[in-house]
């Protein structure tokens, strides 16, 4: 048994973990299907790709973000039947926007520990139920005594973080807008995309101001949607396929909730989570060893911010790499080849579909028109959420 120590945290792996199937629904501002129905559709696709039936599934992990959007508490239990979770060990995990990669991390625990040989991970979000706008549901994220009396909108914290990032590294808005242009264009090749389009930097800079520096086209939209992923033990993977994708490392970390006490220019929470995942995956030089990346991109500056947290760029260097085309789908480090949240959509937890699922599809060479140009062996995906404080990271490889 392999035992390693990271910052006092011991992990022991009983068996390796492979990913053999994934699925996702279309993502739209408003879908007629209920959360249960969306979960069912995503799970069916994942089972279909893996060549499994629901009877083969031993345990289920469900990821879904705030109950506020649905107006339904016990959302995990509500979604149980659509997730294929009845009559088997089932659990829901939730770390805000970070859930999209945290749910597969929880799936990894199930298989790596030897408790399950086949674990299904399902993520669902239905934001459109909340009126007048899903933003209203975010009111509850603020401190009720120190912050809510100031009538904040969730966009504020991102605007504050973006401004600080731009100030410290002297980055211009037009350099950040390139990310939105790239991702929305990449999403044109994604069948599930909600806001794929060809836009220019000027379009971003001239779009409606929300909370400056954040403008409409700097932001991903609220979405309805679901995604699913199947994680299995090596002996099951061998029965199903010659080319599974392996989970090499997982990491997660949270920074203090007192976000006004932090310097927002650098995502320390992502850097800590990445350190853990890279250590586990024996990655010492992420810039050289990572072939494709899916960092969390709910805002255009966030992709850059997270690339720096993941060690894929030096601090302040990510906008330069973007400008030089390094992060394009045919570049040296394709970043968000799926189209990301900016292009495909942002159904909070279900963004697993463009993070963990997309990375699996890329490494399995199944991404179709979205497949990156270069040969790929190892990739990293990451999500982020709560009060800008959680980083969740997963490293995958198609070589064992």
């Amino acid at each position, binding site marked *: 048994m392999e035992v390693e120590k990271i910052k006092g945290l011991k992990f022991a792996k009983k068996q390796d973990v492979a990913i053999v199937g994934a699925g996702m629904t279309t993502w739209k501002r408003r879908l007629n299907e209920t959360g249960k129905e969306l979960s069912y559709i995503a799970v069916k696709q994942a089972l279909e790709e893996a060549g499994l039936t629901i009877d083969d599934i031993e345990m289920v992990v469900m990821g879904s973000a705030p109950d506020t959007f649905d107006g339904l508490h016990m959302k995990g239990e509500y979604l149980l039947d659509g997730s294929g979770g009845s009559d088997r060990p089932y659990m829901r995990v939730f770390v805000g926007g970070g859930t999209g990669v945290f749910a597969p991390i929880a799936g990894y625990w199930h298989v790596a520990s030897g408790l399950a040989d086949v674990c299904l991970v399902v993520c669902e979000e239905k934001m459109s139920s909340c009126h007048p706008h899903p933003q209203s549901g975010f009111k509850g994220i603020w401190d009720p*005594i*120190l912050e809510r009396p100031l009538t904040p909108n969730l966009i504020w914290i991102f605007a504050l973080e973006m401004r600080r990032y731009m100030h410290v590294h002297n980055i211009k808005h037009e350099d950040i807008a390139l990310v939105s242009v790239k991702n929305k264009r990449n999403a044109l090749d994604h069948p599930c995309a909600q806001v794929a389009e060809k836009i220019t930097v000027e379009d971003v800079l001239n779009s409606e101001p929300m909370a400056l520096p954040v403008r409409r086209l700097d932001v991903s939209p609220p979405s309805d949607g679901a995604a699913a992923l199947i994680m299995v033990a090596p002996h099951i993977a061998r029965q199903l396929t010659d080319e599974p994708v392996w989970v090499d490392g997982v990491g997660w970390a949270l920074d203090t909730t007192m976000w006004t006490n932090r310097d927002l220019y650098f995502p320390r929470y992502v850097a800590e989570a990445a350190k853990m995942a890279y250590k586990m995956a024996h990655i010492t030089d992420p810039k050289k060893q990572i072939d494709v990346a899916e960092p969390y991109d709910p805002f255009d500056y966030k992709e850059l911010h997270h690339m720096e947290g993941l060690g894929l760029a030096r601090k302040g260097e990510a906008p330069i790499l973007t400008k030089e085309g390094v992060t394009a789908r045919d570049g040296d480090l394709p970043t968000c080849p799926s189209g990301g949240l900016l292009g495909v959509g942002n159904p909070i937890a279900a963004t697993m579909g463009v993070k963990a699922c997309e990375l699996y599809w890329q490494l399995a060479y199944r991404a179709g028109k979205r497949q990156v140009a270069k040969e790929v062996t190892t990739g990293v995906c990451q999500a982020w959420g709560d009060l800008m404080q959680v980083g969740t990271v997963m490293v995958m490889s198609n070589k064992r």
Partner: protein
Amino acid sequence: MAVGKKDISCPPEAIGTPIKDEDLKKGKVTYYEDYPDLRYAWTAGQAISRFLNELKKGRLIATKCNECGRIMFPPRIFCELCFKPIDDWVYVKDTGVVQTFSISYIDPDARPLPEPIIVAVIAVDGASPKMGIMHVLGEVKPEDVYIGMKVKAVWKDEEEREGAITDIKYWKPVG
């Protein structure tokens, strides 16, 4: 174990039925509405109760940890780094420095505001570096705000103060 993995490009299909906002309004889709009316009364706790009571007197108070030496603001009753009780309460100034700011055109429900408001993280003088709070700026044009700007709290009149964060109306530039 079933048939084995299929060689397909993924996701294989984009399933789901998109609908529009107006489909709801015009009753083209079946739906059910509810208006849960829940109210909350949050206790402010040990540290923030004292903080709010000091606000009422027009003062800002922080707490100190002698182990790491930090003067923490907003105050807390334990140091989250040393994980021990705080050692002292200390007053800090009602002046500070803008760490970052935003000009917001939207309200909490994402509806447009009649006039944009300027929100900022302000590191308060007298507390440890970067110890800030979120608040709004006033008496300044959006285009004149900058990171590093020195600001001072503008308080409500004493009789209007109620022990809330809004006892400070806004922060204005000084110097």
